[in-house]
C-alpha cells in the first residue's frame, strides 16, 4: 500500500505527519519505507538521524542541436510548449535555453532532418538512507536551477518500490497542487491531506481536493493545529462530506520538539496517541 502525505498549502505539517507515522510504523515492526518526494527541499532525514547507503544520479533529456544538419525550418520552436527553443535563420542560430527546457523531447520529434539528438543531463539525485534501527528512507533531491522536478520524483518512487520491497510506502509529497503534487499522489493508493484551519489552509485544501477528485484519487484529511483559526474548515469539510481522520492540536511542546529535529512519537507520549489513532484509521482504509 502506498500512502502519500500531501497538502495544498506548504508548512501545514506534511513532513511532521510523515516522519512520525514512519517511526511509529517501524516501532510496530511494520515493513515500511519512507519516500521523500519533496525534492526541492527534502527534509524528512533531519528527524531520523540517518546514514547514506546508496546514491545515484537522475538524468533527463536535453536536445543536442547539430547546426550543420539544421535547415532552420523552425518546427522545433513551434513544437516547444515552453518557449525553450529559438530559431533565427538570419543569424544561423537554433538554440535551446536549458533553464526553460522540461525535457519533453517534442523538439526531437518535430525535427524533420534529424538535427536534434538526445543529450542526458543530471537533474537530481536519489539517495537511500538508513536509520540506526534499520528503517529505510529514499530521498529525491533536484539539482538547483532545474526547471522540472518531475524526473526526480519519478526516479525516487521508482527506485524505492523496485529496490526495497515493503508492505507500506509512506510518500512525503511536495506542497502545492501542480504537477509535482499530481505526479506524486498519482503513484499512491491513497492521499492523506494535512491542512490547518486558516483561510489559506482552506483555500489550498479545496484546490488539492478538487485536483484529487479529478484524478479519482481517494483522500482523507488531517487537521493540524486544529484548535487554532476558526470553524470554516470544519464546516466546509462537513458540507463536502470529507472525513477528517485526525485533529492534532496546537501545542508548544510539539512545536519545540519538531523545531529541534525530534519526533513526537519518541518524545511526547501524550501526543503519540494521536499518531497511533491516525495510523489505525489509515490502515483500516
Amino acid at each position, binding site marked *: 500500500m502506498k500512502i502519500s502525505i500531501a497538502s495544498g498549502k506548504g508548512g501545514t505539517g506534511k513532513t511532521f505527519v510523515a516522519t512520525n507515522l514512519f517511526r511509529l510504523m517501524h516501532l510496530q515492526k511494520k515493513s515500511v519505507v519512507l519516500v521523500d518526494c519533496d525534492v526541492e527541499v527534502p527534509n524528512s532525514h533531519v528527524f531520523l538521524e540517518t546514514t547514506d547507503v546508496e546514491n545515484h544520479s537522475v538524468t533527463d533529456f536535453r536536445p543536442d542541436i547539430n547546426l550543420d544538419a539544421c535547415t532552420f525550418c523552425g518546427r522545433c*520552436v513551434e513544437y516547444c*510548449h*515552453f*518557449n*525553450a*527553443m*529559438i*530559431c*533565427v*535563420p*538570419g*543569424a544561423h*542560430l537554433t*538554440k535551446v*535555453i536549458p*533553464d*526553460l527546457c522540461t525535457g519533453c523531447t517534442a523538439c526531437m520529434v518535430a525535427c524533420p532532418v534529424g538535427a536534434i539528438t538526445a543529450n542526458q543531463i543530471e537533474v537530481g539525485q536519489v539517495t537511500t538512507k538508513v536509520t540506526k534501527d534499520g528503517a529505510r528512507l529514499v530521498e529525491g533531491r533536484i539539482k538547483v536551477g532545474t526547471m522540472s522536478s518531475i524526473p526526480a520524483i519519478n526516479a525516487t518512487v521508482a527506485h524505492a518500490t523496485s529496490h526495497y520491497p515493503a508492505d507500506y510506502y509512506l510518500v512525503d509529497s511536495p506542497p502545492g497542487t501542480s504537477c509535482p503534487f499530481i505526479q506524486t499522489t498519482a503513484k499512491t493508493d491513497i492521499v492523506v491531506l494535512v491542512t490547518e484551519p486558516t483561510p489559506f489552509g482552506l483555500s489550498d485544501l479545496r484546490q488539492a481536493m478538487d485536483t484529487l477528485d479529478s484524478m479519482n484519487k481517494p483522500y482523507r484529511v488531517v487537521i493540524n493545529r486544529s484548535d487554532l483559526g476558526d470553524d470554516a474548515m470544519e464546516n466546509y469539510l462537513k458540507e463536502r462530506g470529507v472525513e477528517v481522520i485526525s485533529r492534532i492540536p496546537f501545542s508548544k511542546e510539539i512545536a519545540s520538539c519538531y523545531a529541534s529535529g525530534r519526533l513526537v512519537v519518541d518524545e511526547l507520549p501524550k501526543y503519540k496517541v494521536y499518531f497511533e489513532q491516525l495510523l489505525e484509521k489509515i490502515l483500516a482504509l
Partner: protein
Amino acid sequence: MKVVITSRENNINSIVDSRFGRAAYFAVYDTDTDQIEWLGNDVVNTQHGAGTGAVNLLANLGAKKICAVAFGTKVKPLLDELDIQMIVVKEDQTVASIIELLKKK
C-alpha cells in the same frame, strides 16, 4: 534599420510597456522609411518563456535594436548572441518620445 519599442497600446502616444516578453504590443520602427508597424504580442499569455518567445519573434523580423524598460536574465545573453542592441528606457516615456530620441542620434 528596424528598432523595436515595447508599448502598452498600438499608437505612438502610448507609454512603453514595462514588461519586455509580455509587452502588449511591439512598435517596429524602421529608421530608413520612418514607418511604424504595430505588432500584437502573441506570446503575452504564455505560461513560460515569454521573453525567449519575444526574442524569437523580433530577431526573425530583423530587429537590430530593442527599447524596453528592463531585460530579463534569459533574454540578455540571447540578444547579445544575436547581436541585437538593448536600449533601456524610462518607464514613463511614450513611444513617440523614444522615436524622437532615436532620430536625434
